[in-house]
């Protein structure tokens, strides 16, 4: 793992991991915590998930009870809002991630809806807030909490996972329970989830109202220094794609067919197509898509290309999702360095 920060841990997945399989192994899955007070030991028998607020029957559920509820399984990409921030120009403060603050896993757990239904959501509920066992280091500082609108929380897709890739969650990935919000940035995927509160008012806590907000503009894009822009909580992800088997600076024999392969994801919609360009975006050819693991998953792709002329070339890859949204040709910019999804370019030479 790439160590971005020791305490609290920020660990990045080395990019070559994405070339090896469509699912990211648990011990190579990126890790991101905000506050350093993280329980280092969790006892299964003692853990409780509480559900309270605007509900008929507040709940305190043991892990045994949760695992006993109807089980669901879903492949989904978890991606940090600030993935790829290290490439944002002009540079901005924050974790200087390369492209490895993301991962794809098969999540197993229960529907959030089933748990909310069991508690009985009262009329007038507008949002549901999620809190984990991590805590601020100093008193009075904002505890990390995230909220979803009530209809989103009850859509039957948002889930509470107790396993990833067939194993219980590693502690650093949120053992024993993690919220999974398919298609949305992982700031919402609250780890060590132990508290669900149904709210009668929109959540105004710092991590919803101020942090993790984006300009309400296409691609969350603004010009540096621009003011007076309406900000909204970050939400759904956009399509992205990467070449995983060819690095910047690679050299190939001119005139011979070469395999390019990689991964793509559609954000909150499935991957409709992946196009590849070996001439800096002048012409595009469709890549062949790998097995469909579900619309929120990585999708592998591959294609052959030939560099006819000796010299420098730019390889590009572009994902279009099933809503018709394609990656843009220009990089976005916003002060927090969120939501980068520009078409990636790999510089290579033919010799």
């Amino acid at each position, binding site marked *: 793992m790439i*160590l*971005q*920060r*020791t*305490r*609290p*841990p*920020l660990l990045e997945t080395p990019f070559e991991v994405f070339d090896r399989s469509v699912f990211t192994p648990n011990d190579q899955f990126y890790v991101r915590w905000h*506050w*350093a007070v*993280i329980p*280092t*030991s*969790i*006892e*299964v*028998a003692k853990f409780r998930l509480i559900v309270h607020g605007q509900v008929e029957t507040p709940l305190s559920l043991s*892990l045994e009870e949760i*695992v*006993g509820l*109807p*089980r*669901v*399984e*879903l492949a989904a990409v978890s991606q940090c809002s600030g993935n790829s921030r*290290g490439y944002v120009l002009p*540079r*901005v*403060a924050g*974790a*200087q991630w390369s492209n490895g603050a993301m991962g794809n896993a098969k999540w*197993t757990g229960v*529907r959030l809806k089933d748990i909310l239904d069991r508690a009985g959501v009262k009329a007038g509920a507008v949002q549901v807030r999620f809190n984990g066992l991590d805590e*601020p*280091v*100093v*008193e*009075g*500082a*904002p505890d990390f909490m995230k909220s979803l609108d009530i209809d989103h929380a009850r859509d*039957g*897709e948002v*889930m509470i996972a*107790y*396993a990833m890739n*067939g*194993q*219980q969650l*590693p*502690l*650093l990935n949120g*053992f*024993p329970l993690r919220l999974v919000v398919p298609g949305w940035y992982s700031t919402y995927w609250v780890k060590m989830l132990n508290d669900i509160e149904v709210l009668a008012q929109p959540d105004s806590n*710092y991590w919803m109202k*101020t942090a993790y907000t984006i300009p309400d503009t296409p691609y969350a894009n603004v010009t540096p220094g621009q003011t007076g822009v309406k900000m909204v909580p970050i939400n759904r992800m956009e399509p992205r794609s990467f070449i995983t088997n060819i690095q910047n600076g690679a050299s190939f024999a001119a005139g011979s067919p070469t395999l390019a392969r990689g991964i793509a994801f559609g954000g909150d919609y499935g991957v409709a197509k992946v196009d590849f360009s070996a001439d800096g975006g002048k012409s595009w050819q469709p890549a062949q898509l790998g097995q469909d693991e*579900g*619309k929120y998953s990585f999708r592998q792709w591959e294609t052959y290309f030939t560099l006819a002329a000796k010299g420098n070339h730019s390889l590009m890859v572009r994902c279009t999702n099933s809503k018709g949204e394609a990656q843009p040709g220009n990089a976005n910019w916003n002060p927090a360095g969120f939501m980068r999804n520009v078409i990636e370019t790999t510089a290579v030479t033919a010799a």
Partner: protein
Amino acid sequence: MLTSILRLGLLLGVALLPLTVWAQAAPALKSVSVDLPAGVQMFPGGTAADPINNNCLACHSADMVLNQPALSKAAWEAVVKKMINVYKAPIAEADVPPIVAYLATTKGSAGE
């Protein structure tokens, strides 16, 4: 769409043998205990680093701060103010200028 294992099993029967294993054996969760590293690295630079070492290591290790890109002095001032105002870093007013000066020198961008 979420895949209900039960429904899938009914629909596809034995075709999905590996998945039926999922349907039967609920994973028995086991208690977990880990050690997390403290991150004891200090900010380099001798006495010039004293204010930042005294004030900026309580909540997070130095490595991520040292990994930041070169930023303008104003940007560094904003970061330090954010730590105090938002994250409640207990930092004396008098320590702010030397911390900002340290950051603007070691991680500063000229001309901004």
